[in-house]
Structure formats: C-alpha cells, structure tokens
C-alpha cells in the first residue's frame, strides 16, 4: 500500500513499458485532473521525454528489483526503458495529484524497489546537466569469435557494421574493434539529449586516459510533445526547440529501427486510443469507442467492441507510411482531438514521409532492439580447398627465416649460399629454391610458426 508520505518530491517512479501511453493519456485528459489555474496544458511541465535503449532496473537473484541511485533535481517517471522527465516546476503535491490521489489502498502489485550504489561522478564545469551513462562492452575475448585472425579480417575483405539502438547501422573498421570496444550511451536527463559514443580503450579493463573515441552521434529522439500553449519556461523552450530541430535530423532517425518501432508503438497506442476513443482503451470515463471497418478502413461510431486491438498495428519496420495513413484517418473521424495529439501525428507523418528505413537483418528481433550487435559480413573460404592449397603452394611468409624450422612447400625470395660446391651446383640450388621445393619433414619435427603483424615469429603448439 502506498501513502502520500512515502512519496518524496524527488522520487523516481517506474511503470511498465506499455504504461507510458497510459501516463501520457492521463496528462492529456480534459477531466480536471490538473490545477488548471496554474497549468492550462499538461505538456507545460514536461521538460523532456525520451526513450532509452537500456533499462535502469535490474533483478537480484531473489527476484527483487533494484535500480541504481539516481540523483535528480527533477522528479521523473521511469517506465522500464523509458523516462519521462518533468520539470521541477511541478511540486510534489501536483505530481502526486496527477496519478495517486485517493489511490492509497487501491494500488495492487506495487513494488517498492531499493536503490543500489552505482558509480557517481561529479563533473566540474557543467552547470545544469545530469547524465546517465550506460556502457555496453564488447570485450576482446568475445569479439574474437567473429574473426579469422588472418588477412580476411581486414575491412577491405570483411564488412563490419554495428547495430546501435536508436541509431541504426554504422560501419566500423576492423582496426577499431579488434581489441574490443565500448559503446556508451550518455543521456542528459535535464535536457533530454542522448549521445552515443563508440570507443576503444587501450586497456581491456575499462576507461583509461588513453581511450580513443572514434564514433559519436546525438540522438534527439523523444516522444513528441506539443509546442503550442502552456507555460513556456526557459528549460522547456530549450528542450522543445531541440526536439523540433530533431525532427529535421530525424529524417535519419528512421534508420532507428528499434527506436522507431518502440516510439511508434507508444505513439500508435496513444494516437489510436486517444483519438479514436477519446481516452484509453479501458473505458476511461467520458470516452467514446469506435469501430473500424477493416474492409473500407472507415471509422464507424457504434460504441461496440474496442477497436484498438482490431487494428493490430504490427511493428513492421518498413511499412510506416501505411501506419501513418491510418492514423490520419483516425484523426479526422474522432471527436477528441487536441493539439498534443495533432503534434504527434504531424511529427509521425513527417518522419514516415521523409526518412529512410534500413533493411533489417532477418536475425534481428525485438530482443535485439535495445542491444548493440556487431555484424561481420565475410566471403566464404572453402576450408578443404584452402588446406590442400597450403600443402602445395604454402602461405605468404615475406620474412627472413632460418630454413631449419621449415617444412613442406618452400619458396625462397633471396638467399646467400655458403657451400663448398661447384658454381653450377650453387646456381642450380638457388634456382630450385626460388622456384619452390618441398622439405620432407614431419609436423612434429617442424611445427607451424606464425608471424604476427609486427614480424615476430612464434611457434604454434599442437
């Protein structure tokens, strides 16, 4: 049971991943839930809203849930992978009244989670930024699984690309990934801007002063919010202008396939439930439900069964234009239209009309939508052919070698023979060695030796 005293002003609240739309619906409700003398638009106090490609909540072995300490100067709601951040202009009472007034004892299955200590860094020079940093580590040991450890690993032969949640596919170079790398999402909670960096560290154990960043981008991806009306605080203006600017940038954002799907789920849910039914799909008072005629695509006001589920908008990545068309239809036919929803639809249409969606790998599924994945596309080498060719024609050496370690095929580039034999014999020996000879020694007598990139020779033990 929750009671008012358990809520502190700076608390963080977490709800399920699909509850985000419900929360937003509650903000847009015209049922007097807000103190309208102060806030005439629910979006007034939204500072930023964004989706993270990572979750802040983890489970202990006993199943209890924990979340890292989150220092915040703004109260916020975390919904699994997503965060809604609210401006500090919202007092505790207002914040509580939005969601929890009178709900003490009504809430079931509410878990109070314990915070756990996490690394916290204070940074000088930043006046108003608070960031959450999440790192995905690709260690050297796990990366070796996709390498052949020979010249076929070079980027001229094998293509490497990295799937970054909410960014898309980026090309990476072999030399930047071969010793492992780290992907770091840094979320500025205050301003709702997320950046992604990919870097490698000269030391496998983590961040050092010799880290080298070689990829960085900004992800201005948020849940669209209206820019009309309301109290225009400085912070809000700044964030909203960034989000608006992000709409132009977001033409590339359609390559954010999981982000797109994730955003579109919440947007679609919000749009369809709000626009078509005047509320959510679970009979919020004052709502009206309509039915969709699937053959004609027209809305029919029959107050019959729910329509949200019937539309069944699958999270297909490439069919975005069809989805936005449906939602446009809904908007025209619904009696519950507000600027917030219109802004959402406009934003959505803009994105779907101008962006490019990458072809998604068939192996990618929802589970991978928030996990970076490294792909290596390499030409096939028939191993049996390769082995027989090695026996008959060897492999490139291009180094000075003592012939006492060699076996099998040998082709010499240059040699200074010091033998007590005739001139003709020396000439013939040189010609034979440079044309290619076979040294009849067994593998046990003369094991393989490998030269590394720096020309150092080392024997390979069996």
């Amino acid at each position, binding site marked *: 049971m929750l009671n008012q005293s358990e809520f502190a002003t*700076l608390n963080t609240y977490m709800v399920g991943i699909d509850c985000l739309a419900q929360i937003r619906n509650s903000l847009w409700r015209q049922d007097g839930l807000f103190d309208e003398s102060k806030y005439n638009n629910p979006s007034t106090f939204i500072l930023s809203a964004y989706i993270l490609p990572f979750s802040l909540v983890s489970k202990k072995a006993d199943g209890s849930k924990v979340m890292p300490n989150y220092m915040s100067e703004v109260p916020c709601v975390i919904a699994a992978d997503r965060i809604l951040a609210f401006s500090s202009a919202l007092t505790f009472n207002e914040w509580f009244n939005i*969601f929890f007034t009178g709900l003490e004892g009504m809430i079931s299955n509410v878990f109070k989670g314990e915070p756990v200590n996490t690394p916290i860094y204070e940074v000088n020079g930043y006046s108003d930024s608070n960031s959450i940093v999440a790192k995905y580590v690709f260690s050297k040991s796990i990366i070796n699984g996709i390498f052949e450890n020979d010249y076929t690993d070079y980027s001229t032969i094998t293509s490497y690309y990295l799937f970054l949640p909410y960014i898309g596919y980026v090309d990476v170079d072999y030399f930047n990934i071969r010793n492992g790398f780290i992907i770091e999402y840094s979320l500025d909670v205050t301003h709702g801007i997320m950046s992604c960096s990919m870097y490698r560290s000269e030391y496998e154990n983590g961040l050092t002063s010799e880290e080298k960043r070689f990829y960085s981008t900004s992800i201005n991806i948020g849940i669209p919010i209206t820019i009309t009306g309301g109290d225009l605080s400085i912070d809000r203006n700044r964030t909203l202008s960034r989000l608006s600017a992000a709409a132009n940038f977001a033409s590339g954002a359609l390559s954010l396939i999981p982000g797109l799907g994730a955003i579109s789920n919440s947007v679609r849910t919000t749009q369809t439930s709000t626009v078509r039914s005047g509320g959510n799909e679970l009979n919020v008072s004052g709502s009206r439900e309509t039915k969709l005629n699937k053959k004609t695509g027209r809305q029919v006001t029959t107050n019959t069964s729910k329509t949200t589920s019937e539309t069944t908008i699958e999270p297909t990545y490439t069919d975005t234009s069809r989805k936005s068309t449906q939602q446009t239809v809904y908007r025209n036919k619904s009696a519950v239209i507000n600027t917030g929803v219109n802004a959402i639809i406009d934003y959505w249409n803009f994105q779907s009309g101008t962006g490019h969606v990458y072809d998604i*790998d068939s192996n990618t599924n929802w589970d991978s939508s928030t996990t970076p994945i490294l792909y290596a596309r390499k030409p096939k080498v028939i191993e049996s052919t390769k082995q027989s060719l090695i026996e008959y024609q060897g*492999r490139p050496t291009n180094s*000075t070698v003592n012939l006492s370690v*060699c076996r099998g095929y040998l082709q010499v580039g240059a040699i200074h023979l010091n033998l007590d034999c005739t001139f003709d014999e020396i000439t013939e020996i040189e010609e034979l060695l440079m044309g290619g000879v076979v040294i009849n020694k067994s593998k046990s007598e003369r*094991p393989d*030796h490998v030269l590394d990139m720096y020309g150092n020779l080392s024997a390979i033990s069996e």
Partner: protein
Amino acid sequence: MNITFYKNTDEVASFPKNLSDGHLVTGALRSECDVLNPIIEFSGFNPALDYNYAYIDKFRRYYFITGSNAVREDVTEISFHVDVLQTYADKILQHEAFVNRSTNVYNPWIIDDKIPLYQNFEVKSIKSNHYHNIEFVKSKGFTPGTPFYEFNLESLPIILNTAAAIKSSSVKSS
C-alpha cells in the same frame, strides 16, 4: 667405386629424400667422367630397370638416373645428374633466407591471392557481453537513497481509471 642404387618416390625438388632398400654395386672407373653428370657403363646389370636414384661414394653425391642406353649385349650406359638438394641437404637447411611462401612458417596478415574467395558471403554476429554498466554524471551534489516504485502493468490502467474517477467525483462534490 661403390654405387648404391635406390628406388626414390619423393618429389624431384624435395629434400631430404627418404631412401631405403639400397642396392650396392662395386666397380672400377675405367675412363673419364663428369662428376656432376656422369655417364657410366654397366656390364651384366641394368640399374635403370629397377632403380631411379643412386649415390656414388667416390663423388660424395646423390644422383638421379636420367637416361639408359643399351650399348651392346649385357652392357648398359646409364646417365646421371647430380641431385644438389639431397647432396647438400643438411648444409642448405642451416641457411637463413628471405622466404616468400612456406607451408608452416607464414604471416596470416599478408593477403594471399592464391586462396580463392567465393562470391557467397556469411554473416556472423555477436552481442555485447556486458549488458550495461550504469554510471551517473552529476554537475552538483547528489541525493542518495532514492527509492522507486514499480507498478504492475495490469494495475496501472486500474490506477489511472480510478484516479480519474476519484478526481471527477471530488470536483463534482466541490
């Protein structure tokens, strides 16, 4: 002069050769003979019928049998050519050389244009082996011990509906 004949099955340009079952022939050199390309007549014995390789101890060299001529009845003329690799095998293998290609000493990072790469590709993929490490970067002091509350997914619609209903009724009553 002792000449040992062998049946060699190793490659011509290979060394050291595996030689076994030698057949020793003893005789005397009766005329001049090129040491590197000797031509020797054998009477009553044609080594070319059963052997292709020989060692002449007087010359301290190994030889390929390169030709055979029947001179007259029971006399065969055999041509030899020195096998320089076998003769100097141990000394050659003590040398250092700049090697272009080798079966067992190689640099895998040098592109090998003799290995065919096929048109069809394969794709390998891996995920991060660390889920994530969360850190917080803060510009000011922090407030520790922030609790959080998780709502069960099924509960939240009830919560929101109830909140709306309660608020609506409180507004009406006021």
